[in-house]
């Protein structure tokens, strides 16, 4: 088996290449001991099996963030048999900087110039063979999103494996000597002498010295432990004299190296660049936001159009299937509990999951489309000022807003964020953003108890959500997004591209399927748990385990203003918001409906009256506030588990909201008792 590492800047089309190469043979997890996502996949070509490692995207090889540390470490240790550097042909000068950064690492390498079609449209002529000759490594010009080009990719790959060509840093070093400021060049040479006795393994001496000049933390600590204190003192004197911009000497030389290569191999007059008319609107301070809102509302409308028929279909089928199961069980003489189990756990869980996949699908397609076309970066640009206050990137706006449609789907949408810390934090915030069903439940309860004052709860709710953002950013912000790793907004707005529908749909469908698998596992598990604790032979709630527990801990839950009926409804709300109304219907009325935590019983017409008769105002307030920040639903738990690849994080977020909602109920209940 051979290992290929994909190395490229963001927006270079690295993940398109990765997806096209590996298809469904992918495994996504975490790098050991790191909060960074690790994606690897496999493909076979001829007799050979290849492993592809998709390294986290970064603009260079300096280890500044957790993602960059992973990429850097992998590259400098030479873990891959072949490093495939992928660059955007339409922005060659900037994106080849990655190649210049790599020069000096002694791993076999191949270069892929991606998006040749866009480069052509821009009127650029690129002589691929000339570049290959100048760099003396295998070079391929193609378009990763066009599946016809892959035979050529495999051909270049086999050439790279055969040739084992490396790229040295000699030319860059020559440029430094030729054009660098004399005193700085002297310092570089002194550094090289001081570290000359070290082991450089897979790297050239110049590469290590230039990373030292950049104040790269990994190389600094490596050198510090390897040399004598006396040596280190002298090295440090030079580095201190160079200061924070010591890396500019080599940085400028790298760009010079790139432009020397391109001067011979690429042509095309630089058209006078202007913002396109659409970009003028899309990046406008006010219009840009309006456009983004319009697109998001459209997204939500499309999600609903896709999701609603699926949801209706699922529940329709469920209604057909359930009586059949009951009949079957009667026919075979099985216990009615078997029918109840099959219906509420197996069929019910499946139907909820399939139904919600409509949202996941719609959100992934629209976000993929926005990313593919380049619009996502524009929307991030206009919203960055809002989100940077929370430490988040502007890109987070889209997934957060789509949380209003479906928390579980939006959790999958956080994939547009670049670092895992940002993703985790966005998920934490997402859990507090109510989806349509949650809003409906909260407003229903508010109108039952407070009639025309219900809209006031909407206002309070919005304020509370922002307060919870603040709290979450205090609690998680620094841990997940270290302040010293935030660089303010310096972001690239990639050129617009035509969307690549085929690859987009293939990727989305694969993702939906893998989300479904994880989600159904969680949903079945939780359904089973809920089914067991809420099961009673005769459907009477008082004969269930939950009632026994609920009753036993009622003195405790009453601290939060929740008598057993309310507490059970609250627990049902964890399963789904609709379920919590169904539970209330059963526990507050004398309907003959069998009690179940996971059933989707309709809220009875007289539920309001029943509740008003029993529940006091402070209790109602406590319950409404607890419902606002209750765990969104079991699907959100499932997708969070799948997207974090970590049971620990999913449970931590769940525990956090459990605590917030009960804490809030406690405060509200006691204030209300005291005031009223």
């Amino acid at each position, binding site marked *: 088996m051979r290992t290929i590492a994909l190395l490229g800047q963001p927006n270079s089309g690295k993940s398109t290449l990765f997806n096209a190469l590996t298809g469904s043979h992918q495994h996504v997890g975490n790098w050991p001991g790191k909060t960074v996502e690790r994606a690897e996949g496999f493909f076979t070509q001829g007799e050979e099996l290849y492993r592809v490692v998709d390294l986290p995207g*970064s*603009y*260079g090889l*300096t280890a*500044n963030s957790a993602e960059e540390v992973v990429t850097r470490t992998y590259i400098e240790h030479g873990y891959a048999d072949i490093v495939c550097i992928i660059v955007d042909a*339409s*922005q*060659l*000068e*900037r994106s080849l*900087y990655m190649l210049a*950064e790599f020069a000096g690492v002694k791993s076999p390498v191949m270069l892929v110039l991606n998006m040749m079609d866009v480069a052509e449209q821009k009127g650029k002529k690129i002589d691929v063979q000339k570049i290959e000759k100048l760099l003396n490594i295998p070079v391929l010009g193609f378009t990763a999103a066009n599946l016809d080009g892959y035979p050529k990719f495999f051909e270049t790959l086999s050439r790279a494996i055969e040739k084992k060509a490396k790229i040295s840093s000699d030319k860059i070093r020559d440029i430094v000597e030729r054009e660098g400021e004399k005193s700085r060049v002297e310092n570089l040479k002194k550094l090289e002498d001081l570290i000359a006795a070290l082991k450089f393994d897979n790297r050239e001496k110049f590469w290590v010295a230039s990373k030292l000049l*950049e*104040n*790269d933390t990994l190389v600094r600590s490596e050198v510090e432990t390897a040399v004598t204190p006396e040596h280190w003192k002298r090295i440090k004197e030079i580095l201190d004299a160079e200061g*924070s*911009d*010591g*890396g*500019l000497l080599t*940085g*400028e030389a790298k*760009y010079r190296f790139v432009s020397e290569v391109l001067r011979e191999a690429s042509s095309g007059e630089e058209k006078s*660049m*202007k*913002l396109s008319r659409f970009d*003028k609107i899309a*990046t*406008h*301070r006010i219009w840009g936001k309006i456009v983004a809102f319009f697109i998001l509302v459209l997204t939500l409308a499309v999600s609903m159009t896709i999701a609603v028929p699926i949801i209706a279909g699922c529940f329709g089928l469920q209604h057909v299937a359930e009586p059949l199961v009951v009949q079957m069980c009667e026919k075979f003489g099985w216990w009615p509990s078997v029918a109840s189990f099959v219906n509420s756990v197996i069929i019910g869980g499946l139907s909820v999951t399939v139904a919600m996949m409509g949202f996941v699908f719609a959100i992934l397609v629209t976000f993929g489309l926005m990313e593919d076309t380049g619009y996502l970066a524009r929307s991030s*640009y*206009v919203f*960055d*000022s809002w989100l940077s206050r929370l430490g988040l990137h502007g890109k987070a706006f889209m997934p957060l807003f789509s949380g209003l449609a479906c928390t579980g789907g939006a959790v999958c949408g956080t994939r547009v964020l670049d670092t895992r810390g940002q993703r985790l934090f966005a998920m934490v915030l997402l859990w507090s953003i109510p989806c349509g069903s949650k809003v409906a439940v909260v407003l229903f309860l508010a109108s039952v108890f407070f009639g025309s004052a219900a809209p006031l709860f909407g206002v309070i709710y919005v304020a509370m959500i922002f307060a919870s953002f603040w709290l979450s950013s205090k609690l998680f912000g620094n841990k997940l997004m270290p302040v*010293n790793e935030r*660089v*303010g*907004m*310096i*972001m*690239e*707005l*990639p*050129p617009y591209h035509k969307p690549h529908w085929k690859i987009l749909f293939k990727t989305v469908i694969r993702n939906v399927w893998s989300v479904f698998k994880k989600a159904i596992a969680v949903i079945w598990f939780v359904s089973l748990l809920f089914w067991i604790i809420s099961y009673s032979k005769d459907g009477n709630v008082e004969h269930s385990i939950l009632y026994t527990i609920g009753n036993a801990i009622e003195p405790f839950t009453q601290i939060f203003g929740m008598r057993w009926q309310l507490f059970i409804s609250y627990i049902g709300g964890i399963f789904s918001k609709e379920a919590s109304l169904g539970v209330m219907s059963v526990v507050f009325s004398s309907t003959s409906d069998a009690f179940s935590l996971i059933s989707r019983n309709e809220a009875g017409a007289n539920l309001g009256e029943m509740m008003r008769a029993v529940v006091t105002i402070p209790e109602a307030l406590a319950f409404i506030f607890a419902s606002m920040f209750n765990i969104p639903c079991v699907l959100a738990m499932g997708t969070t588990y799948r997207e974090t690849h970590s049971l620990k994080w999913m449970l931590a977020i769940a525990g956090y909201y459990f605590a917030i909602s009960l804490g809030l109920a406690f405060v509200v209940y006691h204030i209300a008792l005291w005031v009223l």
Partner: protein
Amino acid sequence: MCLSELQENQKGLIRKINGDSRFISRVVSMGLPPSSPFLVLQNDGRSPVLVYSHDTMIAINRKECMQIDVEMA
């Protein structure tokens, strides 16, 4: 002068980048090393400044613009 002092459609050259190594390495790797020519695409006085350099459109916060010395070209 700093980057945000240039008006829309003015061309400039990067002269010096001030800040810690992390900031400098980020600006350089995004395509704005010293002595790069660039064009200001948008500068409305409030939003981040949009510049074009090395075939790339880059948005830079106004605060970060203060750390980038430029000259008119």
